């Protein structure tokens, strides 16, 4: 029986033996093949479309790469400047802080569910987490806007939360959102560790904590990193909930307590008001392309981790 090494990251089809001609004309197989090809074609078209639109600002409007990755975003001034660096840094920043908050919590939760919890506790926490995943992001944003933002402003003004809308608020909302994602994948990583390892470790007289600390966590490391990266991917792509609490200030983020903005948030703010063909609109596509490249990077990272996990 094969153990799934990297869930959610891709489809690998293994044919166990050559197909007979009877199987080749097998209708269900054709249908599934068609479905798979359709998805591949769709993805290719999508990539081509976003890629083509994303480079228009360079090819059609003759902005340099340096102009695009500058910190000045002033699309209504003359000359128009479309530096997307504040948004890119915002996305990376809000994502990183969210991961720092969420990773220890959710890996702790996964360890609890996989290794520590008695059955009755697992029976409560697992469904609770599944419900967590199902809450639409706009609800998180709404909670953040009506509860978190005023709370930060009223109780932590002394720390610099003059407005409540802040980098930290965005990261906190995101941390909550990616917590179940990371937990679920980390949980999978722990329970796919062969039971023999635990038995051998315990037979040597270790405590449960020593087994977790010295055997299980190092063994599951690739899976845990995958979990955190997939969580960060979800964080990078989230627009709505974050937009509602970060204040959307298009400058390079400098303080956790002050407003900032992200790529996704800026795209949703401007997309309805710009027209296609306009340089401004092209800049939005470029931001989309940057997000796409980022998620490509993450996928490659996850795949590399998966391979390393397989090799060891």
């Amino acid at each position: 029986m094969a153990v799934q090494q990297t869930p959610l990251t891709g489809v690998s089809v293994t044919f166990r033996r050559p197909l007979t001609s009877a199987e080749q004309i097998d209708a269900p197989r054709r249908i599934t093949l068609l479905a798979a090809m359709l998805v591949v074609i769709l993805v290719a078209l999508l990539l081509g479309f976003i890629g083509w639109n994303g480079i228009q600002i360079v090819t059609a409007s003759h902005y340099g790469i340096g102009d695009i990755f500058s910190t000045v975003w002033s699309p209504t001034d003359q000359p128009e400047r479309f530096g997307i660096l504040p948004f890119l840094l915002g996305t990376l920043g809000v994502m990183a802080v969210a991961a720092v908050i969420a990773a220890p919590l959710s890996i702790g939760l996964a360890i609890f569910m996989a290794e520590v919890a008695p059955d009755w506790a697992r029976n409560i926490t697992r469904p609770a987490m599944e419900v967590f995943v199902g809450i639409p992001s706009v609800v998180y944003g709404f909670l953040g806007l009506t509860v978190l933002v005023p709370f930060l402003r009223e109780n932590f003004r002394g720390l610099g939360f003059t407005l409540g809308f802040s980098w930290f608020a965005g990261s906190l909302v995101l941390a909550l959102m990616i917590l179940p994602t990371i937990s679920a994948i980390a949980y999978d990583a722990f329970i796919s560790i062969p039971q023999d390892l635990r038995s051998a470790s315990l037979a040597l007289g270790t405590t449960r904590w020593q087994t977790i600390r010295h055997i299980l966590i190092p063994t599951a490391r690739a899976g845990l990193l995958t979990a955190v990266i997939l969580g960060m991917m979800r964080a990078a792509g989230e627009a709505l909930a974050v937009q509602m609490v970060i204040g959307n200030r298009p400058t390079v983020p400098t303080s956790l307590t002050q407003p900032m903005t992200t790529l996704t948030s800026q795209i949703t703010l401007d997309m309805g008001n710009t027209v296609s063909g306009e340089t401004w609109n092209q800049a939005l596509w470029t931001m989309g392309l940057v997000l796409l490249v980022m998620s490509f990077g993450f996928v490659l990272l996850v795949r590399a981790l998966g391979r390393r996990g397989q090799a060891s």
Partner: protein
Amino acid sequence: MIARSHRFGAVLTAASLFVLAACSSGATPSPSSAAASAAPPASTAPADSGAPAGSAAAGGGAPVCETGSITAAGSTALQPLVDKAGKDYVAACPAAQIQVQGGGSGTGLTQVSQGAVQIGNSDVTAESKNITGLTDHIVAKQGWIMVVNPDVTNVKGLTSQQATDIWTGKTTNWKDVGGPDEPIVLILRPESSGTRATFKKIVLGGATEATGQALTEDSNGAVVTAVAGTPGSTSVIGFAYYADPANAGKVTGLQLDGVDASVDNMASGTYKLSAEGHMYTKGDATGLTKSFLDYIMGAQVQGTTIPNLHYAPVVK
């Protein structure tokens, strides 16, 4: 163990898909015929003595029915009006179908020039977006009002100069304009917004806003929520949203240069923070599109619907 892990993964995947779906449906402008109808305060007719009642004689301005199906998309500021007019038209001419969608002025202009919709609604001119080949129909005048959080007492209004100083970041405390000793929190719309462009042109005289010290919210509704919830904050919203009973008491409206922000003052030209609402067609309008635009320019819409929804008519 393994079977359990796979089931769990499946649940997670299914749940994530659901979240994605929910998320995208939240971000996509949906056909508004149902949604927007709740927004305009249709029953709260202001004192529209200034409206051109003379031309709105009994029975005047009823639609000349055409059949077919058209879609109008674009400006959310103009949407309540187009939506109401569309509903009234279809009520009188059941053989016609008129879909009204939001999406923003840019979306309206793009879609009409691509032929995806028959009418593109916009707060800004097509020329300002370098789009040619469209026929402009100016259907109404729409107004905006400066609003503040209710904790900013003693400020009845701002002059254009005071507003410019606040919006450019020169004035940062309400006490400098006669209010309480409280920092000013500026809430802007995105730079691509028609509201922001209009305010910048008419009130700020083109001066650049202090974006780096402000918050940005992307719709009238989000602005009302943010201003109502943030002490010392100020922003600009459309008349229809300010007059919406659901927003009553949440924010305080300000005078501009000593003039009340009212439909009458906007119609007479004394209140200057207003702009024309455009409905663009690709080439000349024909068929149902022409009939619908004629209806909007007719006495019934110009004389009754428009003032009821806090716009000002353009046909006297």
